[in-house]
């Protein structure tokens, strides 16, 4: 029989407000096995933990029940306390009487009754707990970064700096991501290329970093410290190691009418292309959907002009297998499609553009060489209307748009408006806003400068309709402060489109078994205290894949993710989770049911010698669980027809005991 101690936490008034904690500790005193029961204001505090340690010694406790907040919050804390008191840490059970009791019930009587029942269930369970010892597994000292934008680049550089090898997988032909497309960056207005491209070069030159560009992750197996990853390197029809990036092929390619995705389709590129001058790796790529040679075998010009002989029309997709200890997700974001917002006439006029398109229009390396020209006729716009929150902050039930604030639009719109007024002072610039959100260092000052120094007209209100008429865009909008409807004849309308996670994130999350929120942003292990870790061990988050972020935030999160990876890779061995399945070989009949349902291939079979009652021996096939591979889901325990398979920490008799305690 266990000697159980019960500790009921008040959590200040969080629990004590709706649960009579004294009544709970009194009621649990009489439960089987309980030899000590008390309550205290903050069990998780040092004093509370000391109280537990003292009680363990004084009453020779063998099991502990803490009635407190969710085990997801403080189970680890109290396990450490138990260990410090000389107990096996797995002799602790938590009754969740805060999140699942005091916070969701208002009435003190029902709250107290339920808390007592939850406490009884925990006592019933702890009575059947057994000491557990975690196993150990080795760590592969190599990290994988998925996505080569500023988030991925920074994470890779920081990990490589600590001396660990890193691979970056980027689906585009070059790293650089969205930041490479930007013109200037807020709030300092330094040029994006000037601060990004040196980092890209650092990546290329760092001997600890390998870049798999034009590649995707196609399969992920394994677990923290031991991931087995398959990378699909798409055929680019150019030998990467030979190509010098001279660009002769690009110049000679006769197929020049392919929409240039780097400039968001605002100009054309050739079928063989290098996305931009500072691309890393600086090698050409053939677009198989546009190349005549690949489509019908007629052309071959690029091969003829390539002095290095790098063109290879027969190249095939290549699959690379690699082992990693940690994986960082840095898949980034995209602006949402404007198709469903045609009240702004995005599909009806070339002069209605998104903010990212505006970045390309003002970028010296963009389609207009940095001159602000209207896409329709090349004239310089005299009146520009910026519309904020297009598709952001929408109703959850609406069929279009996103529920969240996209966070970066207020600042980049202020930047765009300011830059226009700076370069073209005779241009009228309107910004329609619902709220201007500028919580960041020097952010509000920046926005105020746009208004006060640069004379950008900020109007509180929204644009309701844009009507292209002749060569004008008739903008109908509300001015809520002056309580009137405005009609503006604009030359250019710029939409601050909401941002969403890249489409590749969802299938990747499935491969990683990492959780996502309803908007397909990766969820963090804890929104405040573990913001760069996924709940899936060994998977870390960097940049906008976790939520909308600007560059400074992305870079700091990238560094934080890198430090977590370094912390992991620095270990030689990982302590595993002892809550794994195990088979009672005397009961196992080797039927393979468990093996078939195991998602990790953790179960194998061995022939074992058994001594029979008549002193003969018999060889039988029995299941054996590899504790380093088993993740403890318990699928096998239910599949097992003989009841031989059980799960540490969540044993069948423990769960039954909980059911009994609740239903008593």
């Amino acid at each position, binding site marked *: 029989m266990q000697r159980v101690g019960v500790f009921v936490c008040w959590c200040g008034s969080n629990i004590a407000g709706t649960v009579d904690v004294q009544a709970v500790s009194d009621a649990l005193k009489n439960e089987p096995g309980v030899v000590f029961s008390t309550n205290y204001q903050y069990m998780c505090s040092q004093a509370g933990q000391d109280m537990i340690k003292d009680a363990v010694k004084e009453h020779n406790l063998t099991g502990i029940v803490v009635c407190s907040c969710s085990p997801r919050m403080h189970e680890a804390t109290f396990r450490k306390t138990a260990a410090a008191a000389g107990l096996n840490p797995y002799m602790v059970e938590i009754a969740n009487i805060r999140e699942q009791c005091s916070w969701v019930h208002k009435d003190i009587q029902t709250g107290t009754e339920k808390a007592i029942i939850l406490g009884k269930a925990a006592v019933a369970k702890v009575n059947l707990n057994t000491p557990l010892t975690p196993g150990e597994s080795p760590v592969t000292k190599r990290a994988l970064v998925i996505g080569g934008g500023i988030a991925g680049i920074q994470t890779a550089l920081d990990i490589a700096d600590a001396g660990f090898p890193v691979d970056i997988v980027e689906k585009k032909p070059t790293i650089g991501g969205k930041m490479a497309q930007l013109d200037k960056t807020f709030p300092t207005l330094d040029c994006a290329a000037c601060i990004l491209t040196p980092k890209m070069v650092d990546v290329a030159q760092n001997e600890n970093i390998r870049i798999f560009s034009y590649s995707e992750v196609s399969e992920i197996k394994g677990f923290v410290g031991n991931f087995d990853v398959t990378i699909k390197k798409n055929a680019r029809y150019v030998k990467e190691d030979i190509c010098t990036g001279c660009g002769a092929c690009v110049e000679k390619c006769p197929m020049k009418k392919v929409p240039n995705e780097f400039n968001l389709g605002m100009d054309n590129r050739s079928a063989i292309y290098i996305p931009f001058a500072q691309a890393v790796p600086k090698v050409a790529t053939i677009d198989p959907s546009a190349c005549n040679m690949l489509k019908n075998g007629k052309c071959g010009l690029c091969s003829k002009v390539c002095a290095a002989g790098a063109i290879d029309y027969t190249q095939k997709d290549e699959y690379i297998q690699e082992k990693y200890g940690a994986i960082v997700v840095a898949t980034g974001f995209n602006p949402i499609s404007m*198709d*469903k*917002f*045609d*009240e702004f*006439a995005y*599909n*009806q006029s070339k002069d209605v553009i998104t903010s990212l398109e505006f970045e390309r229009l003002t970028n010296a390396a963009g389609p207009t060489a940095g001159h602000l020209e209207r896409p329709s006729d090349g004239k310089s716009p005299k009146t520009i209307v910026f519309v904020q929150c297009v598709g952001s902050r929408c109703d959850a039930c609406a*069929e279009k748009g996103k529920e969240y604030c996209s966070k970066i639009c207020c600042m980049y719109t202020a930047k765009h408006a300011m830059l226009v007024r700076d370069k073209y002072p005779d241009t009228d610039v309107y910004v329609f806003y619902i709220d201007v959100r500028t919580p960041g260092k020097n952010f509000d000052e920046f926005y105020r400068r746009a208004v006060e120094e640069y004379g950008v007209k900020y109007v509180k209100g929204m644009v309701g*309709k*844009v*009507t*292209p*008429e*002749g060569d004008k865009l008739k903008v109908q909008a509300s001015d809520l402060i002056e309580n009137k409807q405005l009609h503006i004849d604009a030359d250019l309308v710029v939409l601050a489109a909401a941002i969403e996670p890249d489409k590749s994130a969802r299938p990747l999350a499935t491969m990683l078994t990492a959780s996502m929120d309803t908007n397909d942003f990766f969820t963090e292990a804890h929104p405040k205290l573990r913001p760069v870790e996924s709940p899936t061990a060994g998977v870390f988050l960097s940049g906008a894949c976790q939520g909308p972020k600007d560059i400074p935030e992305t870079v700091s999160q990238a560094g934080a993710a890198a430090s977590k990876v370094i912390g992991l890779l620095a270990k030689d061995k990982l302590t595993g989770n002892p809550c794994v399945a195990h088979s009672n070989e005397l009961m196992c009949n080797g039927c393979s049911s468990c093996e078939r349902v195991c998602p990790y291939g953790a179960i194998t079979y061995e022939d074992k010698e058994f001594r029979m009652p008549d002193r003969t021996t018999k060889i039988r096939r029995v299941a054996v669980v590899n504790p380093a591979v088993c993740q403890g889901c318990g699928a096998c325990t239910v599949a097992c027809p003989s009841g031989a398979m059980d799960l540490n920490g969540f044993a069948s008799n423990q769960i039954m005991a909980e059911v009994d305690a609740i239903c008593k």
Partner: protein
Amino acid sequence: MKVSYFPGCTLKNKAKDLDLYAYKSAEALGVTLEEIENWQCCGGVFTTARDEVATKLSSVRALKEAFSKEQPLVTVCSACHNVIKQTNHAVQNDKEFSDKVNRYMGEDGGYFGEAEVYHYLEMLRDLVGFDALKEKVVNPLKGKKIAAYYGCLLLRPGSVMKMDDPENPSIMEDFIKALGAQPVVYAKRNECCGGYVSVESPDLAKKSSNQVVQNAKMQGAEMIITACPLCKYNLLKNGADIPVVYFTELLAEALGVKEDTDEQ
């Protein structure tokens, strides 16, 4: 193909053209319009108040009849279409409303939104097919620059009408293309003509109508087509200086059945 047909009050009076050409064209396309027996006026406007039940019963009766004949219910008039589709949606999605409706209907009740409602244009697109329509055209309207005027009733609310993208529709443009003419896309095509206030506030109606016509003309239109008698009335009354005709008239012309209709 046989479909149930709800003409509506205006089509039997001031908008006889809309009705007649709809019949003739359907015939030419191999579609029989079977008029709902004893149909009653839809009321012209869908009252959004959830406690208005009696005013929506005529729509429910029409819907029920179409459903009992296992036919889609086709309408031509934008207003009837809007009222009937919104009523059907309310029966499907608002249980309280649907219960009330069925209690009102008594023995005629037992309708839960099963019927399918098509606008004549949707019928052309989804049941006949614009490609098939194109093949039946005998007088292609080559070179004509025609602006489609949707107005407010045909598309909104988009989540209920589900006819087309409410902000950038293409069904009438595709229709115009199928007839061999050239559609003119202009942004005001889904803005209101001000029809309902032409009694209360004629100036507002005039302003709204003018903006529509002006926008269409500036984008190069030589003619405007509509599915709504009120839109047509309003645009013409407020001085549209390009022809405004019903889409069915244009259809009949392209199908070569307009002349014999005129002779009747």
